């Protein structure tokens, strides 16, 4: 009985743990997409159609496998300006990002804030 309980508890802990590790939280996903749009976008364009770096649109990535894309993101591309992003994404996040790129990313639209005039710093407690 005791042994069984142990096993059950063990399985429960293990499964909770792995479920926890597998999932990239929605907040983190948004964070990664924000990095993709604005930071990757500084070379590849904010719409990912290319700039100093090549286009990352699905039609242009077709010749690459998910694995190749993951390798490029992780290690960068020696001889080009593409740096390694390993310090900023774990393996799972990199795979998720590669899948997003292959499937095509649609960024949520930014809505314009109303024009307002400068607020004096004394009056605004930021």
């Amino acid at each position, binding site marked *: 009985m005791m042994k069984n309980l142990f096993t059950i508890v063990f399985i429960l802990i293990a499964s909770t743990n792995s479920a926890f590790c597998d999932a990239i939280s929605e907040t983190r996903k948004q964070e990664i997409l924000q990095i993709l749009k604005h930071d990757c976008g500084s070379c590849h*364009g*904010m719409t990912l159609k290319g*700039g*100093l770096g090549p286009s990352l649109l699905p039609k242009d990535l077709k010749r690459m496998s998910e694995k190749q894309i993951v390798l490029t993101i992780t290690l960068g591309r020696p001889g080009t300006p593409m740096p*390694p992003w390993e310090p900023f994404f774990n393996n799972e996040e990199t795979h998720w990002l590669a899948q997003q790129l292959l499937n095509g990313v649609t960024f949520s639209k930014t809505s314009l804030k109303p*024009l307002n*005039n400068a607020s*004096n*710093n004394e009056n605004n407690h930021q």
Partner: protein
Amino acid sequence: MKNLLLFILLFSTLSVTCAATNNGSCEVRGTGDLGLIIERATGSAQIVNTSTNKSLFRVKGLGDLSHASVVYSRDARYAYVFGRDGGLSKIDILCGKLVKRILQGGNSIGGAISQDGQLIAVSNYEPGGVKIFSAKDLNLIADIPSSKINDKKNSKTVGLVDAPGQRFVFSLYDSGEIWMVNMQDTSKPVIRRFKKIGTQPYDGLITPDGRTYIAGLFGEDGMALLDLWHPEKGIKRIMDAYGRGEKKLPVYKMPHLEGWAVAGDRAFLPAVGHHEVLVVDNKSWKQQAHIKVYGQPVFAIARPDGRQIWVNFAFPHNDTIQVIDAESLKIIKTLKPGKGTLHMEFTPRGEAVWISVRDKDEVQIYDTETLQLKATLAVTKPSGIFFTSRAHKTGL
């Protein structure tokens, strides 16, 4: 007949009213204290007043502005915006109106206005090359494709600047060249090509006196210098220690050389890959010192009087600004404006600096004497800030 007369009368009154309304929305004033802020994610821009710290207009419909730059007509009434999608937009900043917009290329990076203010040059990644337009109506005047790198593509062009003598100078990223185009005769551009200047020039700058053009190299250490007074002397390599070094450190955002900082006889340059600002003698171009900073610098810009250098940084350090005292070379202040601190612009005589903070959707205005935040302005995903004082500076 009576009806027709009435109709004409009514119609003419109407049109007069419309015209009056239209005039009313324009400002009757000089533009010396105005500027434009790019809203990168929404294809729009705000026209701002740096005396009142207020926003005057928002202009929409400018296309993909993920990378954008601006030059001004010499009367400082019109701003020309170069967008990532190859768009070239002419904006009347007194009326807050888009005057004309053309799609001149597929993917562009920046532009310049000629010495006489008549020509606008745009630098394109795709198709690689430079196109030159009439500043008045944006009609095409010259198309200068860059060197072919294969059957389909021409070299990307970067670091385009204007130079005295109706010249434009730019670098070719893929083919490692610097080209100088003389537009004295607009029907016959004269191109002078300098080859083997180094690998992957990623940006260029011209000294404020318009004499020296320098290209930064990504593929190797050092920079390529061209003396425009003596182009016959060819390219000179300077600052052999400038670059990523043997370890080839990763770079998370290309440093910008435009708007580089000259203070007295020293120039301050963002290092490539290293967390350093380099100090060089701007006569001999020898490195004098290097200043350890918080991250990989993107812009190092001098306050107009040259006493302070303001530096921002690449991802993941792009929430910070550091201020360097140009005399002691010490960091005198570290500011934390917020994530996505992308660009800085000084007011014409430098009492204030405006800073874009992308992720906070605001522009922060700092007093450069007290180094304190004095005001904020709501701007949607702000990036480049461009004040009209650029209208009368070579290379800006």
